[in-house]
């Protein structure tokens, strides 16, 4: 069973003359254990696609099946619970809770996703160790470097043991060397845990750490790295 299958997914914002078709009949499959790069310039529709497969936004038409559930048929409440337990998000920039320490940013997921606290706490400690944050666990985000913050964000995405990891421009707020390191680490963690992942990026250099690349331009999805996608 594939980790994710999107069939004919379209999204139109607005209506009438002002309608914008952000996504046009996108169809793709993400295999179990696969790490996929979604490459496209800004405004290409890659974020729209990510919000739809991430059960944040309903498509205008089409369906998205994650695992064995059609997320487009979930109620808003069900989608919230689904995101909490099945999807791990890594956002672009300052996305940690500023008043929680590195460790608390992970362990807070037990109350958000309503998962047993002891399980989350144990996983958080393992993740902090693996991500090289053991020494920084009790520091607040403002006391961490950009790379460390991004690693905490990776830890938070993994701590609920989700099946699917969605990553939004992980290198946007980092310099190239640090960005590469973070993406490498991300790829490594996803592989080690047998997760599937999709990373949205506009940086073709990051593609080499993923298994496969889809390009998107003006809402149209194509296989591989195509010209004009960066």
């Amino acid at each position, binding site marked *: 069973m594939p980790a994710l299958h999107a069939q004919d997914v379209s999204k139109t914002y607005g209506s009438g003359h002002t309608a914008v078709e952000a996504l046009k009949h996108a169809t793709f499959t993400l295999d179990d254990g696969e790490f996929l790069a979604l490459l496209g310039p800004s405004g290409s529709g890659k*974020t729209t696609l*990510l*919000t739809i497969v*991430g059960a*944040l*936004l309903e498509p205008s038409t089409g369906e998205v099946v994650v695992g064995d559930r059609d997320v487009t048929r979930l109620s808003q*409440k069900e989608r*919230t*619970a*689904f*995101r*909490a*337990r099945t*999807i791990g*998000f890594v*956002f*672009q*920039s300052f*996305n940690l*809770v*500023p*008043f*929680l320490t590195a460790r*608390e940013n992970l362990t*807070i*997921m037990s*109350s*958000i*996703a309503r998962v047993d606290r002891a399980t989350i706490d144990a996983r958080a400690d393992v993740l902090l160790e693996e991500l090289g944050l053991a020494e920084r666990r009790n520091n*607040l985000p403002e006391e961490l470097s950009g790379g460390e913050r991004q690693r905490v964000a990776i830890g*938070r*995405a993994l701590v*609920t043991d989700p099946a699917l990891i969605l990553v*939004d*421009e992980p290198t*946007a707020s980092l310099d190239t060397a640090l960005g590469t390191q973070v993406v490498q680490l991300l790829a490594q963690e996803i592989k080690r845990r047998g997760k599937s992942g999709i990373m949205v990026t506009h940086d073709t250099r990051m593609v080499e750490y993923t298994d496969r690349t889809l390009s998107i331009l003006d809402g149209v999805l194509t296989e591989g790295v195509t010209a004009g996608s960066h």
Partner: protein
Amino acid sequence: MKLALAEIRRSRGRFAAIVAALVLIVFLVLVLNALADGLYYGATGAVRSGGADLYTFSADARRQFPRSSLPESDAAKIAAVPGVASVGAVGTLQGTGQCSGRCPSGVLDLAVIGYQPGQPGGPAHAVSGRMPREGEPGVAAADVTLKRKGVRIGDRVTVSGTSTPMQIVGFTSDSQYELQPTLWTTIETWRTVQGQARPELRGEQGMVQAFAVKVKAGTSKTETATAIDAALGGTSETISKGTAVLALPGVKAQKSTFNQIVYVTFIVAGIVIALFFALLTLEKRTQLAILKAIGASSRYLATGIVVQSVIVCAIGLALGIIASRLLALVLPASVPVTFRGASAVTVVIATLITGTLGAAFSFRRVTRIDPTSALGGA
């Protein structure tokens, strides 16, 4: 919950500001309440402590003791009304007096109240010393406020313009009349003193001002009041003790003025809390969108706001109560304040309700935050 608590712990400065605002508001409300209670208790003690269920005034008295005048013989007619357990005559006289003995010199504000010991209308017990005995001439029990002014048992107090000193035989508590210390004496002594102090009233022999009536257990007070007025042939107006208390000059107006100030202050408290959380929510838009994206429900976030509001209110209340108690310690005894536990409980409940309502104003904003805005960003 965990998130909400951590936010308070780590953003202490910010929450300290709202707590400080609440402390001031709670302090203000408590002091206003204490003043209102102090005035109320000081003005109404004489009527509340009489142990009566009903007061009978003359029909044209507008429920005022000094305006009321009834023949003493009406007592028997009232006593004959079914449902009446006991009846006592009451007379009041406000004025000034002087103390002779070991007590300090100077003029004392006084209210001499004549009653029939053993009957309703006056305090049943003295807190120290004793009450006058039935028909005992020239003695009085004084309200403890006179004790604080230096009057002691054995001292003689004479109302200005009279030649009838009253020897203090005991003290009563919470029995002031119109914020004046009372001297509880027999109705006969009161009549003598009044006759000397207000010679223009001397002609009215055998008159008293009002009657305090105790109703038999299990009898309707309103029906008994109607029956009394019927028995006196429409010359009287009989009202409940509560109504008589509110009929005292200024009491009703004072009560409603203070209540309105307190209500407005609570509205201000609600607005302050509502604004605080609205601003906090506005400021945390991005953070809340991210929390929603990773699976936090609107309900989870809204609960956090309520928890924070309750904590902020609880701390504000605790400090506000402490501050008002400290004020009570330094206020001079002449300021009529009464800090009552019941008022504090009301303030606690009202503040928690107002705080929660104020915090609830941010619910819609929280619900409306779009989790998709967490992605894409820049």
